[in-house]
């Protein structure tokens, strides 16, 4: 063991598939370098499991640089682990100490059923986006990009909302498993930009209806989502969404037939 390397105890949720029951299983992670990322630490554990003929711990991951939003672990009671404003793949083992016990669980929400072990099905997010998270323009036939001038302050604010990576940490962090930070960020981005105006009032209605149909909880404004969001999406988005929703529902002509499709 080289200097500074750590031995850790992992308590990991194992669940064969969506149908079966799961349980916490304890593993040892030995000789872990503090320079490893959290996922690389799991890679090491998995290599040793495979060599024993055991099934590796399954977890979602892809880009491993904090942008694809695929990694998702709930580490020691916090989505994406103890550090602010990063994803699990950006978490490095130097944030832990030798001998520590680390509890690793999947995101917990009725709308995010477990696929296997630590991976969950977040297709609910896709369905919410499909219900209205777009500007209805076809390819071609659009104006020159500089014909739409957007004040920098608006563009920047819309950008802040657009940085959401759709990882679901907000849902995982919320005591109500509410998806409002995600949904409101998506709605806000387009609601702030001129391109999003024509469908602004129908979009918010459609997306909120789909969000409700997916079985997410509601918002109690605790701010846990904002605190845990790897991209630090602001709670202000939820406020904007609420405002738009009430305006749309109570004072606007646009009507959306509620066709919220439930999860598979």
């Amino acid at each position, binding site marked *: 063991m080289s200097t500074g390397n750590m031995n850790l105890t992992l308590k990991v949720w194992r669940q064969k598939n969506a149908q079966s029951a799961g349980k916490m299983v304890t593993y040892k992670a030995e000789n872990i370098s503090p320079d490893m990322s959290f996922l690389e630490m799991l890679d090491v554990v998995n290599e040793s499991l495979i060599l024993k003929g055991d099934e590796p711990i399954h977890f979602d991951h892809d880009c491993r640089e904090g942008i694809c939003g695929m990694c998702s672990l709930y580490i020691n*009671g916090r989505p994406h682990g103890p550090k602010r404003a990063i994803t699990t793949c950006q978490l490095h083992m130097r944030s832990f100490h030798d001998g520590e016990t680390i509890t690793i*669980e999947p995101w917990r929400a009725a709308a995010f059923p477990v696929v296997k072990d630590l991976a969950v099905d977040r297709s609910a997010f896709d369905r919410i986006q499909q219900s209205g998270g777009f500007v209805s323009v076809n390819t071609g036939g659009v104006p020159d990009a500089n014909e739409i001038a957007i004040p920098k302050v608006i563009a920047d604010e819309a950008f802040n909302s657009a940085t959401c990576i759709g990882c679901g940490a907000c849902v995982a962090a919320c005591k109500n498993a509410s998806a409002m930070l995600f949904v409101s960020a998506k709605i806000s981005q387009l609601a702030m930009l001129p391109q999003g105006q024509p469908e602004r009032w129908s979009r918010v209605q459609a997306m909120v209806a789909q969000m409700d149909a997916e079985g997410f909880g*509601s918002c*109690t*404004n*605790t*701010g846990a989502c904002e605190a845990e969001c790897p991209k630090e999406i602001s709670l202000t988005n939820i406020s904007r*969404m609420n405002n738009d929703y*009430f305006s749309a529902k109570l004072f606007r002509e646009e009507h959306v037939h509620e066709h919220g499709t439930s999860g598979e």
Partner: protein
Amino acid sequence: MSEFKQTFNSSLGKKLIMALTGLFLCTFLIVHLGGNLFLFRDDKGYGFNVYANFLAHFPPIEVIAYLLYLCIIVHSIYALVLTINNRSARPVTYVAHNDAPASWSSKNMGILGSILLLFIVIHMGDFWFTYKFNNVLGFKEYKTNLVTGDRTVTDFKPGYADFENSISTEGNNEIVRVKDLHARVVWSFSHLWYVVFYVIAMGAVSFHLVHGFQSAFQTLGWTHRKYTPIVKFIGTWLFAVIIPLGFALMPIVYYIQSLSK
């Protein structure tokens, strides 16, 4: 489903109702505290009893009062419905404790609200119900000399069963005969357990509103870089400090006074 029904059945619609009823209850607290400041006047309950009599017999106030009761009921029922929905949104809970950096009160609005509901039931049973529907309260007669301002107080026994109140003048004296709720206050606040219960409940008010007041603005979508700090200031200092403190002082002061009698 009608559009309004649809709206208020949505997760956001339910929150809208929570916010609106909550804010209405907040404004009531200001009025209620204002009136109750009469309790701090050393006038043998004159101001307080006249104020209570006014509230009970001025028709617009009565309408608002029933709106208030409705708000309390709706706020509680919707809170219950939302809590049940929110619980079912996470059927399997986490093993590791969630120490998400959110304020304690924001995460415990349900518990705080339940304490408040219990308090409101007991509080209203003791004062409102007793005042309105019970005949245990006596009457007081306040005779005020309009020239000197001197006031005397005596118990008053009405001549008939459904006597409510009366105001009359005899020469230089104004005679006011009203139900003596003040005596009930003195009696109630002479019991230590009752005082403790009140103080705890006011603590719950404080924690409930430190989150609740500004949260209502967030829910309504009324956030603004310039105004939200003001809302938070009011929510903290007025609703979470001054109002609960004001209410809590009443039982404490009366209890201390009762000890010296």
